[in-house]
């Protein structure tokens, strides 16, 4: 097992897939010679050259459209949209084009492509460079939505996304790029649509995604240490396809469900999962389903304000304690 950072795992996954498949190529703004503004693709240009690793103009519609046109005619492109907020500029391609062309053409067209994007807050960038928008993507039929929390999952799930025959929006969390973790040696490919129990427990189930996973785990450890409350934490990992089996079997065991979501309150990903649980597992619940989210506000830049907006370890800890008591 090698220790890699989350950002190194991105480059490792792309390199792994480029080596095995000639049709994989990578485009985006400042991604090649500069190695990406988050340095997540350093080394790819040197290794694979300008034919396969391409710096593009600031043209988000052209980037996603080009990826789509290439994908529907035989390539497996990876396109980077630098900040997920910028997806709003080219959302037509996500919401109307890559997601619907297979259905509209009754299966004649396919779009095996990956859109990688830097998502989430914590960097004091303000409201237009900090959003968590995985819930926007989740609302669109026809695409898959992935948001990993560890370097190993970055490598395995990104490789799986590149090999997948559907368009995948791959949300990398900006505040996780620096974290280190063990990544399996050799070829590593994970499975989309699988959640992971990252901390076993019996008193309540907590669902989390991306940056919220380590925070949920830290809160759970503190609840155990200080109050003997035993929390099961599930890293949802992919919102579409959604692994309800893993989630449901945990809820049946614990009887309590919490979600920890970085997206703003309304229509966050947890709302959908909670509605499924209420629908299907109502009689297994011992108390209300509780969502811990960012309030329904644009994110502020000031560090003290951003820190109280996004769910913190303390907020998660306090809320769970309050509800369970």
């Amino acid at each position, binding site marked *: 097992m090698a220790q890699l950072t989350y950002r190194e795992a991105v480059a490792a996954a792309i390199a792994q897939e480029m080596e095995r498949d000639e049709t994989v190529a990578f485009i985006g703004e400042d991604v090649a010679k500069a190695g990406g503004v988050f340095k997540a693709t350093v080394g790819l240009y040197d290794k694979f050259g300008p034919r396969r690793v391409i710096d593009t103009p600031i043209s988000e519609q052209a980037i996603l459209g080009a990826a789509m046109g*290439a994908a529907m005619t035989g390539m497996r492109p990876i396109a980077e949209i630098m900040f997920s907020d910028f997806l709003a500029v080219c959302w037509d391609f996500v919401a109307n084009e890559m997601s619907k062309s297979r259905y509209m053409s009754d299966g004649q*067209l396919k779009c095996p492509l990956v859109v990688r994007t830097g998502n989430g807050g914590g960097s004091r960038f303000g409201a237009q460079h900090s959003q968590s928008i995985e819930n926007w993507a989740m609302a669109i039929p026809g695409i898959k939505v992935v948001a990993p929390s560890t370097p190993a999952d970055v490598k395995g799930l990104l490789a799986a996304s590149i090999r997948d025959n559907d368009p995948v929006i791959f949300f990398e969390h900006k505040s996780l790029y620096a974290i280190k973790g063990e990544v399996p040696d050799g070829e590593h490919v994970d499975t989309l649509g699988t959640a992971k129990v990252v901390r076993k427990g019996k008193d309540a189930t907590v669902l989390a995604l991306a940056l919220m996973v380590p925070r949920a785990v830290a809160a759970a450890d503190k609840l155990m240490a200080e109050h003997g409350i035993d929390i099961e934490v599930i890293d949802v990992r992919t919102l579409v396809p959604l692994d309800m089996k893993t989630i449901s079997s945990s809820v049946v065991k614990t009887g309590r469900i919490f979600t920890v979501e970085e997206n703003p309150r309304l229509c966050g990903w947890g709302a959908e999962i909670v509605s499924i649980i209420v629908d299907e597992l109502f009689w297994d619940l011992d108390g209300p389903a509780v969502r811990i989210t960012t309030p329904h506000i644009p994110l502020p830049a000031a560090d003290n304000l951003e820190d109280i907006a996004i769910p913190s370890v303390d907020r998660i800890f306090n809320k769970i304690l309050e509800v369970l008591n």
Partner: protein
Amino acid sequence: MVKNKKIKNDDLDDKKRLELYNTQYLIRFSEQRAYDLFLENLVKGTSHLSLGQEAIAAGFACAMQKNDKSFCTYRGHAHTLARGASVVGVIGELMQRDCGLMRGKGGSMHLTDTSKGVMGSYAIIGAHLPMAVGSAWRAQYLGHDDVSTVFFGDGTTNIGAFHEALNYAVVYKLPVVFVCENNNYMEYTPIESITAVKNPAADRASAYGLESIIIDGNDADEVFRTAQKAYSKARAGDGPSLIECKTYRQSGHSRADPGSYRPNGELDHWKKNNDPIIRYRERLLEFGITQNVIDDIENNVKIQVDKATEEAKNSPIPPESILTTNVYDNGGWAWRN
């Protein structure tokens, strides 16, 4: 600038001319049929016809190789038929029947036949330009010899994706041909009243280092020649072309539009003096093709379209079982386990 260049016009052989006429006539007759069918309430939803614009679709399609790719707008019946898609598939799709190209799941605005290189018709203005660019990137990247052509209206030249796609295609010298069908109207509004330049596509070409090309889009020979030149350039690795074809839409923007914004006499003028079918018929006679040959072509098209119409009318509606198919690659729609 290539504009109304007087040419001797004897560089095309009879076979090519008849192919051009047959294609134009097939489009004309099928579009008229589509119009009749929605008067009968058999074509549901909306429909955007290319009546009056047939020479553009025919001229480009007849200059393409089999493996070339076409990307169309919602006004895409003409381009789909011109590539040789099945007439019953097209009419069936307009009628939203099971025999339609996409079994009724796409409808009039999304005609697709990948087996003929028709890589889809897209109904959000501008989106398919970057897609054609991407298809051209694939050809360059994998060393394929096909060219991607994207057809769009004059209104598209005012949306961002048009400009992003042109810049991108020029930067990477991609084998893509941008074809603007300037039919004078952005939906209901005269294009010149809402565009900073007179020629909405050609006057923007210089901003991307491209030659400014304006052609008579109602002259199939001129369209064909221009297309050939653009394809040779693209296949030689010399990059994209942007071609503005001047034409006129003889029908409304869509089925809901009676075209009451047109000045008096304008439509009649174009129909009488600059109709691509009438002009081409005269040209065929001028080049010694007999009236009998022309009649045969027209009769065969009529038989073909009548047969397709009957077949489409007799086709069942799509089964409810396909409502949830082909959302994802596994053929289904499951988003959870």
